[in-house]
């Protein structure tokens, strides 16, 4: 909205000049816009190289090699020429991928890895949820204070106030550090220390999502209707009693919704973590590529990953609907 300047200042101009506005918001948008546009000038994006003939030839070759191996045959000049498409051949090949994994490599089958991916994501999100439930109570401003839900009690003595402030601040810092660390980097670091096939992936996902769920849960507690808790408190209920009997049931539906949303992300991430050598689909995807550039198998396993991600989204949508219906 803008008003053009006039020679004589009218009431409209005066109002426009006096309009409330936030410099912070304007500067933020300007900076953000500058960041988005400027990145294209600062970055080393070599468009000529990205669209060069070499790249085009690479892409061409890649698209040829994505065709399943049994559906190609050596041609006259030594390259593999596509054979006519045959669902039977493709089916046999696909079945081998599901049971044997990457051909000629000692990997688990695709199906086993897909289930492993799901198992990693489920265990990780359950652990994250359990841990976040402990954290969130100490991070919520309404609960982690010396006199929770007692609006008329007056301020507590300062040492207790300070103690709770320290507890709350420390919990919040732990949560924020947890969620700032990318799962992939956490898994990479943990892998060197644990060397068991699945724990690094599970822990990495659990740590990151505990940070996210913990903050969301703390916000939910802070936004919950305080009246039932205040009433309970007036009857002399303890902090723990209030948390378990008044707050927990009130925030449960919301938390379950967040839980399932985060689980959807966990399935995606669990697929990828296998690239580090962990027991998920990512391992097969990586293995297919490094062991002789079997792009056909790589794309097959990426497709399998899509299937379980979509299945996870569907399951999560159903569960969220059940939770919503129940509330």
């Amino acid at each position: 909205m803008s008003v053009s300047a006039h020679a004589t200042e009218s009431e409209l101009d005066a109002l426009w000049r006096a309009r409330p506005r936030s410099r912070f918001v304007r500067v933020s948008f300007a900076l953000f816009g500058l960041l988005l546009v400027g990145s294209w000038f600062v970055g080393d994006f070599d468009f000529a190289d990205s669209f060069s003939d070499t790249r085009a030839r690479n892409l061409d070759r890649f698209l040829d090699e994505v065709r399943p191996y049994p559906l190609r045959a050596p041609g006259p000049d030594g390259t593999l020429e596509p054979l006519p498409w045959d669902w039977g051949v493709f089916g046999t090949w696909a079945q081998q991928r599901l049971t044997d994994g990457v051909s000629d490599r000692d990997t688990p089958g695709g199906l086993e890895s897909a289930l492993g991916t799901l198992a990693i994501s489920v265990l990780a999100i359950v652990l994250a949820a359990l841990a976040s439930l402990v954290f969130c109570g100490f991070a919520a401003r309404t609960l982690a204070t010396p006199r929770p839900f007692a609006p008329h009690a007056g301020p507590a003595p300062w040492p207790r106030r300070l103690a709770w402030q320290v507890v709350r601040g420390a919990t919040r810092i732990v949560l924020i550090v947890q969620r700032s660390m990318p799962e992939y980097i956490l898994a990479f670091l943990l892998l060197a220390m644990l060397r068991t096939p699945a724990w690094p992936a599970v822990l990495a996902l659990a740590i990151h999502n505990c940070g996210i769920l913990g903050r969301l849960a703390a916000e939910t507690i802070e936004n919950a209707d305080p009246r039932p808790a205040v009433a309970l408190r007036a009857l002399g209920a303890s902090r723990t009693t209030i948390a378990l009997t008044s707050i927990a049931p009130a925030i449960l539906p919301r938390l379950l919704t967040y839980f399932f949303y985060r689980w959807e992300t966990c399935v995606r991430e669990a697929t990828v973590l296998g690239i580090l050598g962990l027991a998920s689909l990512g391992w097969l995807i990586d293995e297919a590529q490094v062991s002789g550039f079997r792009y056909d198998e790589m794309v097959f396993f990426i497709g399998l990953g899509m299937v379980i991600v979509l299945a996870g989204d569907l399951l999560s949508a159903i569960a969220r609907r059940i939770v919503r219906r129940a509330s």
Partner: protein
Amino acid sequence: MKQPATGFSLDDVSVRFGAHAALRGIDLEVAPGEAVALVGPSGAGKSTLLRVLVGMVRPGAGRARVGGEDLATLTRSALRRARASIGFVHQDLCLVPNVRVARNVLSGRLGSQGLVRSTLGMVFPPRAALDEALAILTRVGIPEKLFERTDTLSGGQQQRVAVARALYQGPAALLADEPVSSVDPARARDTVGLLTRISREEGLTLLMSLHNLELAREFFPRLVGMRAGRIVFDRPSEAITEADFHALYDLDPAEVLADGA
């Protein structure tokens, strides 16, 4: 934008929402330029009646005419024109809370503009439009709020913004659905007085639903009493009797049990 006032006519109109009959065989004539108050308890069907008149609810039976035209037979664009010619002040404010007041006022004229023109007008409002919006805000008493964020205004002030949006349409009639249900009695009196004064000055038809029988009697020459989807009385306000009042508000146990609303 000045248009001649429109009249309304309802001919045996019934509306059902599922099992609940909101309107049962309503007959009502409102002449152009007339000021009429709809009174009655909540759940009487007043809101539904008003919504039928702007084509927001389709009657299950009967005819609703605006300016002599049957709403059910209008083409899409004619329906848009008919709606644009009627200013509607809603019960809950129905403003966009997180934009400046000016945008809410200017959005009143969307109905008479195409998409491209209205988009340009909303993003870069022409000076003339802002001057007009300011003049209307002056009439409703809050000119200084033109560029404030709408949700920073009090409930009464937001009510005035809603009135200003309706007036900015340049309407031929004003409908108001419980415009004062959420403000205190003194503000309520001001707002009802404002709406009746403006529609008298502009020669607009005014149809307002009200809880408060006293206010209705003070400001409107004609009162229509409704209860349980039916018109109970329709007479000049001097002729309203104690018995009419009881007919509207006395509890009938059978009715209370049948319809909790």
